[in-house]
């Protein structure tokens, strides 16, 4: 292969063009900042973690010989003497999805360099996330009071409690970490560190508004995963 520049496969249509694009020099994904590519790579890896969790849950559930607790009874909420199935979880899901909305707006305002709007929306997102975690804590408490333990429960297969606490706990950890980062990011935004390109405290990397979008990717991912967990635990 010689002194020629690489053939510009980029200009060809179809599959070859796509491969050519990806393989072209310097960057596989043009105009995409490093942090964003890294976040995507991390999320793909994280997808595998959650996938393994959920597949493990399915396998445990299928393999279990004891009866599986009935989701619409277990997760029902007592409202004025009536058992309303899925009430709490519907609110939780609504809140988390809304937080995706505020996050998306924060990203938009970030690119418009609107410091206070961005910071405010980030804080709103963090608040919604906190509420979600709080409600999750409430649900855990309720279940624990009813006698659900990772190693047993009153209604049947003990893997129910184990999988529920492990997987929602793992997801809740994701949300909590996200909230932490949201708060840090909000402070950075409000202080103007992103505008000024001030180096970060630990990493020494200069601030930039793309960071908001990268964090947004993570947050949307956490929401998306919740939809799957919701489906597998509450609707199945």
């Amino acid at each position, binding site marked *: 292969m*010689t002194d020629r520049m690489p053939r510009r496969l980029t200009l060809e249509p179809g599959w070859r063009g796509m491969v050519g694009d990806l393989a072209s020099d310097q*960057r596989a994904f043009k105009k995409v900042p*490093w942090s964003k590519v890294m976040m995507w790579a991390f999320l793909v890896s994280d997808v595998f973690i959650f996938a393994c969790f959920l597949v493990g849950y399915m396998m445990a559930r299928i393999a279990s010989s*004891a009866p599986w607790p009935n989701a619409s009874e277990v997760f029902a909420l007592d409202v004025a003497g009536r058992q309303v199935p899925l009430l709490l979880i519907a609110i939780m899901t609504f809140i988390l999805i809304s937080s995706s909305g505020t996050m998306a707006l924060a990203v938009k305002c970030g690119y418009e360099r609107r410091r206070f709007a961005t910071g405010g929306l980030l804080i709103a997102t963090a608040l919604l996330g906190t509420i979600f975690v709080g409600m999750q804590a409430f649900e855990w408490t309720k279940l624990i009071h009813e006698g659900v333990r990772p190693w047993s429960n009153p209604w049947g297969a003990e893997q129910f*409690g184990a999988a529920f606490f492990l997987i929602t706990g793992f997801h809740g950890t994701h949300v909590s970490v996200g909230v932490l980062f949201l708060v840090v990011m909000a402070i950075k935004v409000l202080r103007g560190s992103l505008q000024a390109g001030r180096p970060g405290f630990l*990493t020494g990397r200069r601030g930039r508004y793309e960071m908001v979008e990268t964090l947004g990717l993570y947050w949307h991912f956490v929401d998306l995963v919740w939809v799957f967990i919701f489906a597998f635990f509450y609707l199945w």
Partner: protein
Amino acid sequence: MGEREYDASSYAPPAEVEEMELPHPKGFFGKYVWSQDAKVIAVQYGLTATAIGLVALVLSLLMRLQLGFPNSLSLIDPGSYLQYVTMHGMIMVVYLLTAIFLGGFGNYLIPLMCGARDMVFPYLNMLSYWIYLASVLILVAGFFVAGGSTGAGWTLYPPQAISPGTPGVDTGIVLMLVSLAVFIVGFTMGGLNYVVTVLQARTRGMTLMRLPLTVWGIFMATVMALLAFPALFVAVLMMLMDRLIGTSFFMPEMLSMGESSDHRGGSPLLFQHLFWFFGHPEVYIVALPAFGIVSDLIATHARKNIFGYRMMVWAIIIIGALSFVVWAHHMYVSGMSPYFGFLFATTTLIIAVPTAIKVYNWVLTLWRGNIRLTLPMLFAIGFLFTFVNGGLSGLFLGNVTVDVPLSDTYFVVGHFHMVMAVAPILVIFGAIYHWYPKITGRMLDETLGKVHFWITFLGTYVIYYPMHFMGLEGVPRRYYAYGETTFISDSVQSLNAVITVAAFIVALAQLLFLFNLAWSYFRGREAGSNPWQATTLEWQTPHTPPRHGNFGKALPIVYRWPYDYSVPGVKQDFIPQNVPPEAVERESDTRRGGER
């Protein structure tokens, strides 16, 4: 289809990647301990992995002592034998090979070979090393806690791993699991860096199809690791809960000493699936970097372009993808539907195709090459033999009917040591002999190296070749002693003694190697910047060893693929990647360099 080229005046496309700001710390600690320089991190990874690898080597010697000369050391009882097996296997596979290939060579070579100043996120990269170190320390702590380290086998199969009676069930297994989880976290930080650096931070002119195969191998292995380790991570968390909180993900109800256990309804098979969904790709995680590195060693030291570069790249990608759909070939005897067995046997054998292509291409690269029997070349050739041998016995184990009687015998031990222990280790040695001059600025001693090579290469054959025959006779693996077993002939004991003697000799030869590393650091011959006359970018740095930032003021511009060796009509027998066309000295002006 219209092929357009850049016009001749603009060989190199304009820079798209902005220059990175590097922290330039002062003082010893900033430069060599809390360093964010990928090259320093690489050496830290390498030294740590070597240190823990030596522990694993000593463990294997203790095992060999027991097998070759039973009961000669009272320290070793059946329980501790199992602990040695487990720690030896796990350390070698995860903490030595994975860490040294990806954390060590990956860190050193990726930025240099891609023409980057450093990894894209140096701080994260530094954290990756320190977390890895923590995981190693947690693992080592297992040796010192009450009850000792776990003796569950490196596969850690439940229910045995966390049932009373297994060595280390109190603390050892917990430390092992925690250590693995920590390792995965640390690895992920590094792995993301390697992937993004290769994808997004190459220098001008460096297309993916101009990357040295070393980078391709490490890159693909990293991608696989990022997708395979999650399964292990999940398995580890679930097993920790089973052990610590008393859940029953993996634990069925069991009777022990007339009492039924607290667990019920768990599925040990679930663990096996999760483990091997990680475990099989893991084999290729250590194999692909070896494949990549060996390609470069062979091309450089045979002064020939690699045969079938594109095919090699695609083979790496295809092997990586396929290796995610073969995991259950480790579970032929665990009980599964024969249809599944058939499916997994088929995918397993299909992987042999791209792998065989690679072997042919290496051989064809050597074919009529100008082979220089330097140390890296010797080790590369040693790898070829060993790998082919191990691959052939893999064909036996990949078939369900043949595997069933061979499962859990020494045939398996012989097979996997050949293919994933000795073969990659030989490449690591070759790679160290090859890149040591760049890392330290001095050559390793040739004579010592040759002695090291021949003892290691021949020695490993004496060790592992007989194991295949022992396996055919049914000698089981993970056994401390065979007792009065009629199907095992007496000669097995003499074979075992021979193997043990060979193992000790091989181990001693490694001391020679370590001595060589230390001695040459101070006394070795000065290497100069490009002692092997290689084409890739790491040999074109302005300083040897390269300084922080790798390339001095301006990043190199790449004009060609990395295998321009012995190009017809060109004066020198190699053209570095960063030499522009007009600077190539030709024998006559009428002929242009090999057109490809």
